C-alpha cells in the first residue's frame, strides 16, 4: 500500500520551524543583549535609551527578513498561478473548441460536465444530457460488455477503459466513437469522477466498412473468374484430349490399312497405285506429326512455369544427345560457349533449345560443312542466348511471320515441318517474360536469339 503524505503537514512543519527559530532567537537576543547592556551601562536613563535603540534595530532587522521571506513566497505563488491560468486556458480551448467530446461523470455515470463537442456528437443539448446517464448513449448490442467495464472503473479495479464502439444519437442514428474513460480516485482509493473522451470516428468506420465490402466483392469476382477460367481450361483439356485420341485413331487406321494393302497385295498393284498408297501413308504421317505438335503447343499454353536455376550447359548436352540420331550422317562443326546459369522452367526451356537446335540442324543439311554455334551475352537485367547456323537462312522481310502458328518460310518439299516449333518457342519465352528474335540472310545462315530475365 502506498502511503500518502499530505502536503499541509510539510507546510505546518515549515511554519513551525520559522516561528520557533524566531521565538528562540528573539528571546535569546533579548536576554543576551539586556544582560550585556546591564553589565556595560550603569546609568538608568542611558540604559533606557539604549534599550529603546536596540529594540528599534531588532525590529528593523527582523522587518527586512520578513520582507525578503514574504516577497519570495509571493513570487512563487504568482508563478504557480500563472502556470495554472495557462494550463486552464489550454484546457478550456480544448474543452470548448476541440474536436473531442469530453464529459465528467459521477459514480452512476450521470453527466456532471459536458463540452460542446460532446453534445454535438451525440445530438443532444447540454440540459438534455444532464438528465441522462452515459449508459443510455451506448448501442444495445454492446451494452452488457460496456456496463461490465464501466463497473470496473467505478469500483476502482481499473483506471481506464479504451474501446471503439457504437453510440446512439438522439435522432436514433448510430455513430462510431473512439472512447477513452479515465477514472480519478481519492487518496484512499475511492472513486471520485470519470473523464470520458469520445472521438467521432463514424466516417473512418464507414470507409473501413466500404473497403471491406469492396474487398469482399472483389474476392467474389476473382473467385467467379477463376472458376470460369478453370471451366474453360477443363474444356480445353477435354478438347485436346479428344483431338489427340479421336483424331489420331482414324489416322492410324488409314495408315495401317494402306500399309497392309501395299504389303499384302504389292504384286497385284500397278506402280501408280503403289505411288498413291505411299502418298496417302505420307499424308497421314504428316498429319500425325501436326496433331502431336499442336497438342504440344496447347499443352505449353496451359502449363505453369515452374522456375528453377538451370545449368544451361548440362541442358544443351541433354538436347544434343536427343537429336543425335538425326545427325548421325552429318558433318557439323559445333562451337559451344560456356553458358551462364539461367532461371526458368527446365522442361519448357528444353523444348526451346530442342526446337532451335533442330532447326539449325535441319536448315544446314544442304551445306557440305554445317557450322552451328551456341553462345550467350548478358547485361544487368537479361541473359541473351543465341544459336547461329550457316544454313539456308531467310529473307528478313518475312521475319514477322517467323513466330506465328503454322507459318513457314520454306516449302514443304524443301524442308519438312509443321510451322509450330517457333510459335512454341515464342510462347515459352513469353511465359518467361523474355524475348525472342532472329537475324538472317538468305543462303548465308540465321541466328536466333532469346533473352531471359535474371532472377
Amino acid at each position, binding site marked *: 500500500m502506498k502511503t500518502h503524505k499530505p502536503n499541509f503537514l510539510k507546510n505546518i512543519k515549515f511554519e513551525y520551524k520559522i516561528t520557533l527559530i524566531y521565538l528562540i532567537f528573539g528571546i535569546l537576543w533579548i536576554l543576551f543583549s539586556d544582560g550585556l547592556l546591564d553589565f556595560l551601562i550603569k546609568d538608568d536613563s542611558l540604559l533606557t535609551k539604549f534599550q529603546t535603540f536596540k529594540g528599534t534595530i531588532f525590529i528593523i532587522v527582523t522587518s527586512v527578513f520578513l520582507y525578503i521571506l514574504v516577497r519570495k513566497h509571493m513570487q512563487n505563488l504568482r508563478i504557480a498561478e500563472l502556470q495554472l491560468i495557462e494550463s486552464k486556458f489550454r484546457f478550456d480551448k480544448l474543452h470548448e473548441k476541440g474536436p473531442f467530446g469530453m464529459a465528467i461523470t459521477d459514480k452512476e455515470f450521470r453527466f456532471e460536465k459536458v463540452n460542446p463537442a460532446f453534445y454535438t456528437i451525440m445530438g443532444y443539448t447540454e440540459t438534455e444530457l444532464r438528465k441522462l446517464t452515459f449508459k443510455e448513449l451506448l448501442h444495445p448490442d454492446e451494452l452488457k460488455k460496456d456496463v461490465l467495464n464501466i463497473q470496473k472503473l467505478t469500483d476502482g479495479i481499473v483506471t481506464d477503459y479504451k474501446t471503439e464502439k457504437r453510440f446512439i444519437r438522439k435522432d436514433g442514428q448510430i455513430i462510431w466513437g473512439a472512447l477513452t474513460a479515465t477514472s480519478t480516485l481519492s487518496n484512499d482509493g475511492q472513486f471520485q469522477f470519470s473523464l470520458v473522451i469520445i472521438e467521432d470516428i463514424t466516417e473512418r468506420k464507414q470507409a473501413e466498412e466500404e473497403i471491406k465490402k469492396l474487398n469482399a466483392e472483389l474476392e467474389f469476382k476473382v473467385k467467379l473468374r477463376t472458376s470460369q477460367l478453370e471451366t474453360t481450361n477443363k474444356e480445353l483439356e477435354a478438347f485436346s484430349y479428344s483431338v489427340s485420341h479421336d483424331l489420331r*485413331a482414324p*489416322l492410324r*487406321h488409314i*495408315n*495401317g490399312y494402306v500399309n497392309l494393302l501395299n504389303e499384302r497385295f504389292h504384286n497385284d498393284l500397278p506402280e501408280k497405285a503403289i505411288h498413291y498408297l505411299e502418298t496417302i501413308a505420307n499424308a*497421314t504421317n504428316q498429319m500425325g506429326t501436326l496433331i502431336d505438335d499442336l497438342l504440344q503447343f496447347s499443352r505449353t499454353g496451359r502449363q505453369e512455369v515452374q522456375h528453377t536455376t538451370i545449368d544451361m550447359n548440362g541442358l544443351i548436352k541433354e538436347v544434343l544427345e536427343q537429336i543425335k540420331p538425326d545427325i548421325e550422317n552429318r558433318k557439323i562443326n559445333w562451337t559451344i560457349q560456356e553458358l551462364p546459369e539461367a532461371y526458368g522452367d527446365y522442361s519448357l526451356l528444353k523444348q526451346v533449345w530442342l526446337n532451335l537446335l533442330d532447326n539449325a540442324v535441319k536448315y544446314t543439311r544442304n551445306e557440305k560443312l554445317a557450322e552451328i554455334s551456341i553462345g550467350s551475352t548478358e547485361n544487368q537485367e537479361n541473359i541473351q542466348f543465341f544459336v547461329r547456323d550457316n544454313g539456308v537462312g531467310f529473307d528478313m522481310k518475312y521475319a514477322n511471320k517467323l513466330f506465328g502458328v503454322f507459318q513457314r518460310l520454306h516449302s514443304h518439299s524443301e524442308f519438312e515441318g509443321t510451322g509450330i516449333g517457333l510459335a512454341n518457342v515464342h510462347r515459352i519465352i513469353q511465359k518467361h517474360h523474355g524475348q525472342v528474335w532472329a537475324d538472317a540472310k538468305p543462303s548465308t545462315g540465321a541466328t536466333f536469339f532469346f533473352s531471359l530475365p535474371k532472377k
Partner: protein
Amino acid sequence: MFELKTILLVEDNPQDVELTIEALKENNLSNHVVAVGDGVEAMEYLNYEGKFKNRVKSNPIVMLLDIKMPRMDGIEVLEAIRKNEKLKTIPIVMLTSSREEPDLKKCYALGVNAYVVKPVNFQDFMVAVKQIGIFWAMLNELPLE
C-alpha cells in the same frame, strides 16, 4: 515347344483389334489373342462370368488395355484388377491412342507395367506391338498362380 497362355486384348475399336492382331501374327502370337470390346467384358473374362463361364481356368499372360472405352474404361479395369487378390499379378500394358500426362500418372500410381502410345505410322505401330508381344509373352517370367 512351351505352352503359351492367352494375350487378352481389351479394345473397343474393331480396326485397332484387327491391326493389332496383324502385328502379332508376324511372331505367331496371334492365335493366342482373345479380344474383348470393353472393360466390363474384360472383367467377365477374368472372373469366368457370362460367355466366359466355361473357359479354362487361367489368367492371361499379359493384358493389352485401351483407355478410352464404353461402359468401363481401361483405368477402371486396371484399378479393379490391382485390387483383386486373384488377378493383381497379371502384367498390364496400356496401349492407347494418346499420351496424356494425367492418364500416365494415374496408371503408374495404380501399378501398370507399361504404357505404350500407338504410333500413327503403321510400321512403327507394328514394331511397338511386336516388341510388346515378344517381351511379355515370351521373355517375361511370371510367378505360379
